[in-house]
């Protein structure tokens, strides 16, 4: 029975080929648009997530406070209010995954006849984990290097390329501020940060070495910045609050006195960006679905014409024993078949265009099985929804009237 009806639906579609194809076109465009928009939207989301993960997740930084001399305010991290002791105390707090006191600045690097200026970060080993740095070759320095202030350095990819060119940097000696440093490792590449800085243009050295040999500091042990990573996104707020309370206590700040440090949440920026892309991709999908609805209305339109055209056929079928259900099924099947065929073609075209966009513009596109599945379910739903009314109209025809129809 079903097979016979499917065969008839196929026959009916073939009988009016151009019309069927034009009707399908609405679905093709609709589904194609949804697939492309979803691919681009999810691609954008993926790109944002990638850059969030290169920055390190669930991070916030503490900057030491400002000071005022003769009315001139220094800006944040002007005053040496944070120190290594603060960092150690914070790492004892619950929900804190990594704490890294850092001191950074731009310095000139020299190797042989080459020189290059890069960001030099003096820090402790947890920094690598907090910022999700990987080691491409060589090895990271350890806590003992920090304790004994050895002159070792990890260099980013950009530094390696500019300073060492084709040489293998590991084991080589370069100079920072006249001080020789042994390169112990090359960092894995992270690419651009959110604000467009090259994250690979970095040298990481032990904090103690940085303070003594590179930057110099009036108060040994004080740091400009402490990077704190919470164990999870949910714990961010609690950790931030606890850290603030702890530092106020350690810095002996009385009730009513302002903080002598600043706290900046890095993930918030990233997450708002992620949120924006998410909203964007939902919006794109929604706009694309409108064309699906338009396609569905096209199907309804043609099915209504088809029912009118085939009124006599419906009458004949009823006269030889078709029940209302049979007529309903027949027309519904035709509508669903058109919308399915349109969906299939739309899916293929959508995928081809998405891949084409990726190929020609390099834009990240993500093609997911769930998007294809959604498109299919939507197509079937559209077919049934918009096919229902014409099919019901056909099924409810009066057999005598239908037989008389010319």
């Amino acid at each position, binding site marked *: 029975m079903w097979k016979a009806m499917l065969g008839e639906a196929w026959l009916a579609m073939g009988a009016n080929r151009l019309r069927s194809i034009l009707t399908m076109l609405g679905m093709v465009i609709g589904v194609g648009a949804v697939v492309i928009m979803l691919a681009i939207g999810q691609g954008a989301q993926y790109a944002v997530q990638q850059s969030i993960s290169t920055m390190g997740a669930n991070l916030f930084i503490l900057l030491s406070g400002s000071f005022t001399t003769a009315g001139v305010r220094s800006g944040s991290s002007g005053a040496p209010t944070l120190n290594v002791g603060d960092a150690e105390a914070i790492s004892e707090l619950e929900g804190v995954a990594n704490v890294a006191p850092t001191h950074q600045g731009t310095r000139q690097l020299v190797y042989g006849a080459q020189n290059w200026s890069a960001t030099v970060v003096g820090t402790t080993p947890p920094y690598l984990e907090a910022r999700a740095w990987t080691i491409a070759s060589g090895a990271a320095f350890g806590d003992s290097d920090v304790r004994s202030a050895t002159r070792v350095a990890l260099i980013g990819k950009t530094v390696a390329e500019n300073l060492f060119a084709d040489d293998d940097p590991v084991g080589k000696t370069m100079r920072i501020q006249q001080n020789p440093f042994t390169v112990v490792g090359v960092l894995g590449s992270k690419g651009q940060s959110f604000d467009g800085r090259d994250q690979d243009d970095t040298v990481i050295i032990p904090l103690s070495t940085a303070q003594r040999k590179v930057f110099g500091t009036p108060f040994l042990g004080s740091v400009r910045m402490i990077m704190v990573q919470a164990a999870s996104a949910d714990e961010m707020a609690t950790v931030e609050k606890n850290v603030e309370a702890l530092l106020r206590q350690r810095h002996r700040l009385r009730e009513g006195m302002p903080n002598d440090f600043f706290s900046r949440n890095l993930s918030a920026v990233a997450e708002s960006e992620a949120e924006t892309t998410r909203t964007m991709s939902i919006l794109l999908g929604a706009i694309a679905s409108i064309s699906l609805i338009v396609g569905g209305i096209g199907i309804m339109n043609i099915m209504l014409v088809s029912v009118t055209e085939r009124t006599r056929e419906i009458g004949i079928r009823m*006269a*030889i024993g078709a029940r209302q259900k049979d007529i309903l099924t027949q027309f519904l099947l035709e509508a669903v078949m058109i919308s399915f065929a349109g969906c299939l073609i739309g899916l293929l075209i959508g995928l081809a265009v998405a891949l084409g966009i990726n190929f020609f513009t390099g834009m990240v596109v993500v093609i997911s099985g769930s998007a294809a599945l959604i498109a299919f379910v939507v197509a079937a739903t559209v077919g049934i929804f918009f096919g229902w009314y014409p099919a019901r109209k056909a099924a409810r025809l009066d057999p*005598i009237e239908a037989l008389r129809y010319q």
Partner: protein
Amino acid sequence: MSEAVIRVVGLGKSYATAAGLFPALRGVDLTIQAGEYIAIMGPSGSGKSTFMNLLGCLDTPSVGDYFLAGERVAEMDKDALAQLRNRTLGFVFQGFNLLPRMTLQDNVALPLVYAGKDKDSRRAAARRMLDKVGLAAYAESLPSRISGGQQQRVAIARALVNQPRLILADEPTGNLDSHTSEEIMRLFGELNAEGITIVLVTHEPDIAAHARRQVRFLDGRLVSDQFTDACGDAAVGTLPESSLEGGAR
């Protein structure tokens, strides 16, 4: 032949028109026994088409009772009526009414699709019926490839495919020349000889003459009922001859 295939009692049908309720059929009583061959005659507007639609379970009566093979049709729902049309009776129309996009075999097999038969038995039955009407050679052709008389024979095959007890033919020769009409009537005669009850609507007296019983309609009433059996012209006419002539065109 004791069982009545069709029994109608006080059958009436009214249609709502702009001028009010129009009675197309006003109380018809008729009993048709199994195996009868009956022609229904009358001018247009006499109610014979309305009567045929009611007999064919395409329509339900306003008043009166209709028993088809002992079942009371008036109270049935649309699905039950569809089932009667599918299994108990077969239609033959004036305009053949074959589906133009289907092969003759598929046309003949169509009632079996609605009867829920599987593909193999549909095909076998359709072949058998086409063979019966002498058109097996054209099984895979489209209706447009054969003549009107042949199309009507295919339509008869379609009416027969579900082995109904009753064939309702509405002006089956109306679109055919006299020679092909004779062929079709011969086919009906053969079917009747096999025991199938045939009800024929026609306004041509020479076509009606093939039947063994003629009933005449006028203004929604049954006005004459005549048997022309081999045993003699036993007329049971209830109206004068002149009024009957007015009905025949």
